[in-house]
Structures are given as C-alpha cells and as structure tokens.
C-alpha cells in the first residue's frame, strides 16, 4: 500500500515527454562535451 497516490502521466504524454527528454539528455551531454573540448588544437 502506498501512502501517497503516485501521479503518472497518460501514455501518450509519457511518449512525448520521453522523446524530448531523450533528445535533451543526449544532445545536452554532447553539447557540454563539445564546449569542454573546445580550444584545443584541431
């Protein structure tokens, strides 16, 4: 038994949240690494 009712988004909203969060996590980490790696010889 859970003490607090856990609220979960409907499946369709989950899909789109998942899609954009995936892009955000993957894209964000790549951009961060790109920024960190800048300035060295190319």
């Amino acid at each position, binding site marked *: 038994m859970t003490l607090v009712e856990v609220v979960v*988004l409907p499946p369709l909203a989950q899909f789109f949240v998942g899609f954009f969060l*995936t892009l955000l*996590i*993957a894209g964000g980490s790549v951009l961060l690494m790109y920024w960190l790696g800048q300035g060295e010889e190319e």
Partner: protein
Amino acid sequence: MPIGDVEVPVIGNNLVIPLLVVPHILIAAYIIGINLIAATSELVGMITKQRRYDRFARNAAKTTLLLFAVGSSLAFTFILALITLYPVLFSHLQNIFFWVYLAETFMFVGEVITVYAWYIAWDKMAYRKNLHVTMGFVAGLFGLTQMIFINVVAAYMLTPSNAPATEVGWTFLNPTYMPLNMHRFVGNFSYGGFLIAGYAAYRYLRVPREEDREYYDWLGHWGIIWGFGFLLIQPFIGYEYMTEIKAHSPGAFEYLMLGPKSWLFNLLMIELLIMFTASVAYCLHKIKFAVKPAPRLRNAVLGALGLTAIFGLLNTIPADLYLVPQIGLVFGEKVDPNIGLFETPPIPLGAMYPYKYIGLIGLAFVGLFALALYLKAAAGGFHWGRANRWSQYALLATAVTVVFTMMTMGYARETARRAGNGAEDGWLIYSCLTLQKQKFVGEGCPSAPRETP
C-alpha cells in the same frame, strides 16, 4: 516493502529505462562506430602520408574520450534502475547470462584502457605508427565485442530460444542474435559516418580559413562515404532481421508491421528517403568539383537521384490510412493483420509484395550505383573547399535524420514486446516474463514452469 514495488512519479516506471538507454545507445553507437572509423583513418593516413586522415583520427579519438564518461554513466544508471524497477527480470537474466555480463565488463575495462592510451600516446608513438594504429583497432574491437556480448541479452528478450535456460548455446545463439549483430555492426558505421559528415558540414559553414574549409569539405566527403556506404547494406540486413522476428515472435512482427505500431516503419521509410536522397544529392554536387571533369558521371548520378526519389517515395506509401491510431491520425480502414503476402491492402501501392521489395532493392542498388560513380570521380581527386552551402545542408540533414532513425529503430525493437499480452501489458522476455507484474508464464522460457519469487 516487497522488492520491485518502487513507483516513479510523473513519468512512470516504464519510461525510466528508455530515458537512460536511448541516450546511452546514441552515444555508445557513436563511440563504437567512430573508434573503428578513426583507427581506419589513421591507417589510411599512415599509408598515404596525407595529414588530414591523422588529424581527423586524433580529433575523433578525443571526442570518444569526452563522450565515454557520459555514455558509461548512463549505462551504470540504467543497470541500477533495472535492478530496482525490474528485479525479477534482472536476476533471471543475470542467472542465464552471467558469463555474458562478466565478459561485457572486461570488454568495457579493456576499451577504457586502450582508448585512453591510444589518444594520450599519439605524439609519443609518432615513430611507432604501426603499433599505434593497432592500439586504435584494439580499442575499437573491445567496443565492438562489448556490443556483441550485450546483443545476446537484447536479442534473447525479443526472441528467447525454446530451450532450457541452462542450454548455454541455445540461449546465446537465439534466433535474432546474429541478425541483430549484423544490423548494429553496419548501423554503427553508418551512424558514425553521417554524424561525422554533419559535424564537418557545420564546421565548414563557419570556419573562415581556406585551409580549414578544405579540411572540413574533405571530412564531409569522408563521413558520407562511411555513412552512405554502410546504409546501402541495411535494407537487406534489416529484412533478414525482421524475417527472424516473424518466424520466432510472430506477434511482435505483426504488431510492428501491420498492427498499432506500423507507423514506425512508415516513419523509417521517410527517414531512409531523406538519408538516401540527401546523400545522392551531395554526391551529385561534389562531382562538379572533380579534378578531372566528369560530365557523363554527373548525368548518370542525376538519373540515380531521380530513381532514388521514386524508389524512396514508393517505400513511404502506407498499406492503409489507419496511420497513427495513438494520436487519432486515422482516415480509413485498418489493413487485415492476417493479410497474405500476395493479397491487396486498402492502398494497393502500399503492398509489401511487390512494391516494397521493388522500392527497397531499387533504393539499395541505385544508391550503390551512385556511390560507385562518386568514388570513381573521387579517385581522380576533388577541388576541396568549394562546395556550396546547400550540399552542406544535405549533410546536416543526414546527420539529424540518422539520430531520429536510431531512436525510431530502438523504440521499435523494444515496443515490439508490447504485443501478445493484452492492451495494458507486454513482455519483458517475449512470451515468458510479463511486463507489469513480472510473472513467468507457461513453459519454454525457462523450459520448466517457475514461480515468481
């Protein structure tokens, strides 16, 4: 609290895993692909004495290092989430595939050590280039072997062997194991190649120095050869992969090809159309800058571009207008999921036979033809640094599309296990372990009936 009773708010338990795995795969596939491409480039640079190959290889090794930590952090977090949210699945897989996981771990350690050593020793080993190139290939092979080991588990979850779990050979060499290996092996090169091309285009459009423009123009060409070259093989390997899924998990096959998620393959065809057309258009543009003018080659590639568009568009025609039921994009009757190969669906041109076969085979062969002509022109050399911005936009389009293609295909493989267990449930291991309650059902997987702890 019983184990596995964790409930993640807002996004739900099911979304936690893909949120960690998809970014991980987008990074890991890039690392595997680019590591082997970079090692090959270093080898080519060593043989041809052209500095740009070495320059690219070194920078590629640097990006591998930078992204390695992020990629592996996502993997570790994913394992943590899997143990917490799906403990029955994880303990079951751990029992069957202990040796696979152990080997996977050692491959990971091997890759970390060699890829770092490879990058750090670039200058120190400048006069021992043979050894250094070998080190790059060893790092790449560690990454590749890592993928080959984890594919055992991934393939088993979709098409578990109808054999006792203790039969190591049967569980390891499950029906879709080899097709998945081939599909991902080729896919990693194609993915890495298109990303290189996209990055090169982005830099080409921004750098002011002539020397850099020449380099990034060449890099776009180098990336598209890998990306497009390996993409040409994918339709055949993908077909073989789907054939194995059809034979061993028919419910999953129907769910993807004719069921509620058939839009994924319509989407894939649109993505293939963009990547093929953009690649051939790029080749057509570059041939203009061949050192030896080749008007006949260019005309032939122009024809190939037209055929690519026709075959690609043929593939995108759906079998019915029941397009995306999940968002209400429905304009007509659904095709009968039990339709025979030679029967006509609501939209005749959307039939698998003969139109999709014609489209896919045509696309691959016309693409091969265009690439061969492009390579023939490239053999005589190009005037680098003169490409126009539209050709670079084509490269950027391939890079963006290949990322979406990876996401589409990853989602397709995992969502296929939604089939055959009611609308609200699915399988963690197909026809064996249920998704929501983590209950084992029936015989065959494992072969003897077993109760959930």
